[in-house]
């Protein structure tokens, strides 16, 4: 039996009818067409489905759509603005932090939550913040370098204008 939920996704309000057993991941992918969050394991192990819910990262395969009622969700599709790509997205592209791309959305969102709270993290803090996101391609080094390169810049909303 479907129920109506209201939530904000990438700064847009939505009212959606969802099944009680439907995951946030399926809702984002199937109902909103936001396929940047990936299905890698459906058990909360790989982090490919990571999205931001009320400022913290969640594995959207472990969150029921109904639990997202009233929440603010940011997916990878919500990072690009009229000013262009988010600095973390730019850094991932420039530093070669992307190979197959299946983990990339989750990695970038985990990095964003870290940098929003802690603009100049140590390498250890970066590794700790991204430890829930598996990558089988890169060996993680260029991902760490990409996040470091952003944190080395002056972090803040103004940086996009410059």
């Amino acid at each position, binding site marked *: 039996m479907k129920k109506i939920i209201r939530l904000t996704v990438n700064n847009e309000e939505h009212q959606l009818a969802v099944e009680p057993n439907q995951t946030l991941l399926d809702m984002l*992918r199937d109902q909103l067409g*936001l*396929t*940047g*969050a*990936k*299905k*890698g*394991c*459906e*058990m909360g*192990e*790989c982090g*490919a489905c990571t999205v931001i819910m009320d400022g913290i990262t969640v594995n959207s395969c472990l969150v029921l759509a109904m639990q997202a009622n009233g929440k603010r969700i940011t*997916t*990878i*599709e919500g*990072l*690009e603005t009229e000013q262009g*790509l988010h600095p973390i*997205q*730019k850094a*991932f*592209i*420039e*530093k*070669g932090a*992307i*190979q*197959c*791309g*299946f*983990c*990339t*959305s989750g990695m*970038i969102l985990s990095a964003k939550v870290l940098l929003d709270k802690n603009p100049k993290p140590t390498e250890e803090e970066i*590794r*700790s913040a*991204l*430890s829930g*996101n*598996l*990558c*089988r*391609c*890169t*060996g*993680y*080094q*260029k*991902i*760490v370098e990409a996040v470091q390169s952003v944190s080395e810049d002056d972090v803040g909303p103004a940086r996009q204008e410059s």
Partner: protein
Amino acid sequence: MSQYNVIGTRAPRVDAPDKATGRAVFVDDMKMPGMLFGALLQSPYAHARIRGIDVSAAKRLPGVKAVVTAKEAGLVRFGVSPARYDETLFCSDKVRHVGDNVAAVAAVDLETAMEAVSLIKVDYEELPAVFTIEEALADGAPLVHEEYPRNICAEVHQEFGDVEAAFKECDLIKTSSLTSKLQNCAFLEPQACIAFYDHWGSLTLYTSTQTPHYVQRTVAMVLGLPVGKVRVVKPYTGGGFGAKASASHLELAACLLSMKAGKPVKMRFDREQVFWHGRSRHQFFHTMTTGVKKDGTILALKNECYLNGGAYCSFGIATVYYAGSLLGGPYKLPNMKYDGYRLYTNLPASGAQRGHGGVIARSCWEQQLDMIAEELGMDPIELRLKNVMTAGDVTCNDLNMSSLGMKEAIEVVRDASDWNNKKGKLPKGKGIGMACGFFVSGAGYPIYRSDTYHCTVVVKLAEDGGTAVVYTASAEIGQGSDTTFAMIAAEALGVPLEMVRVESGDTDFGVDLGAYSSRQTLMTGQATKEAAEDAKRQVLEVLSKELNIPVEDMDIKNGLVVFKNTKPDFTALRTRYQKEHRGWIDNPGAEEELSFREASRIAYLARGTIVGTGKYRPPELGGKFKGAAVGTSPAYGCSAQVAEVSVDEGTGKITVEKMVDAHDCGRAINRTSVEGQMQGSISMALGEALFEEVKFDDKGRILNADLAEYKIPTILDMPKVDARIVESNEPNGPFGAKEVGEGNIVPTIAAILNAVYDAIGVRIHELPLTPERVYLALQEYKNKSKTKS
């Protein structure tokens, strides 16, 4: 400094912006109108006779559109090597492993399809099963395939030179062994596909694969369709590493269901099914004996190997050959004997995984070389430098090292790791170790016996003149091949990278054997270069006629026509171009050089669409002995690595603290991508060395078919990898390039094993190096030392 404008740079990948924004489309992101969802019925038993299948209840379930079993699928046998086509789409007589495929359903949604699968009644008669090498080989053991006595799927017996005679000349002969565990490629994207069979009788399969070409052939063969009616398209693919290098039951079932239901059918593996499908690294049991002279000269190697193959052959024939042939280099080895056996067991089939067949063999031998160095009182690096091959050397099994920066790579890691100040001098519990390895830059022969080109490439210049499109059936699976071919085409055509677009992964674009055996950079790269040069030649021929200048007096560089002698008056050409583009704001200014865009437009006006074609097929390679093809390649990449580890003697936990890695990839096309391959392959090997193991219960059921308990390295497990590119100029590669994707995984495990010994003084001959195994080895060593004293 560089003679090239695009090659050798750190250009960002062409697919990175789409992947960074979530726009890149993988198969599971796709939908088609009227699309159905498929599900597989897989065996709960490791070995059982099928006495009957009742699908009536499944068929009656509302929403079910098709149910298929062996009855509908037929019994066309397929596999990887035509010599061992031992699989059918669905089992008919018996199932051979837990997860073996029995039936499939297509329905209006996945839930209905799964419910229907649960309604299929299979009458099984459980049979005794074999899971280990010993069980498989035991007298009177149940047979996995009746036609293979003693469960031997394949065996290899090779001898080059005379090993026994050589041993008589040796001052030191050493025997040791290494055992590994079943691996899983554990790519992040589970296999998925959408098949659509249309009313014209054409089948299109969108699938997550490394090898669209082989999938196309297998689908056509198994389902009885003309190859030309089957189109396989690979969207973005989330890693492969070997397990996606052949057609799967998932793909075949989706195709059959679509043919039956007349609608598109989507299917995907969940993570558990990825493990049941397997097709990753075998479990190996190597025993080796090496003989050397007192000065360290290696004279002979005797290598015996048993592979636990699982229920089907998959890539296994190639694997069992590679486990011998890839020891022919990179050291001078005049005598080599190999006996290899691949056994059928009632486990999921093993296949190919990064460093195919060569990884555990190399790990065993490089650990043994360290043991030999110690007994000879030689530094391990000195021993290796003493024996190392150089460009032009040919191995005893006829592999030609047309370029080989092995010596340079060893010297680079020795110096970069500060080896001379660290080896044997680190505090207790800390250690340093090194190893080397090499790998093919593309298998010398296709999987099926054929004179086919290994790849064909088309470079089409847009009729407008401004863009070159590269059409290739090669597979971008994350390694960066689209970017590599865009860079090669740009360089060969003489245009900036932004003017090139790559369309890949579609069998309609030509033949390409795909992303396996580290073949695409060299092979597809050669074909791309040839196609781009062909297109450029055609443009210059038209210019030659228009301007009355010989073709050889012109070139195209950086998007501009270069006149090597006097610059002609090309005003008439420019005027023609500009007249066609009245009102356009980006027309070339009067003083500017003649551009590629103008020249290729003029060429189109003279000749119609300009299409350059390229193709590549290696020359005849290798010796004449049985199995000589496996290991042949137009070129070999090689690497040397130094690992630094610390071992907690209280818990047995190993931490890899640093890796220094030097790889000879020929000329690096994209330096960032080369480093990415080096760092990524080290992470896969580190997982295999320290914790990866697919575990089974006594019924052949996987205990850890998930990414929580099958542990791959996280970002916290990975040390800093100091990746050093060693460039040789490979004569058989495009712009001198060769492989990096697999060769670099080969030395890592041995480097770690050797570092662990340096840290704790204990040799461990079984992988993975879990804390438990290391702790017990330490205890055993201490007990032994006590009883001795």
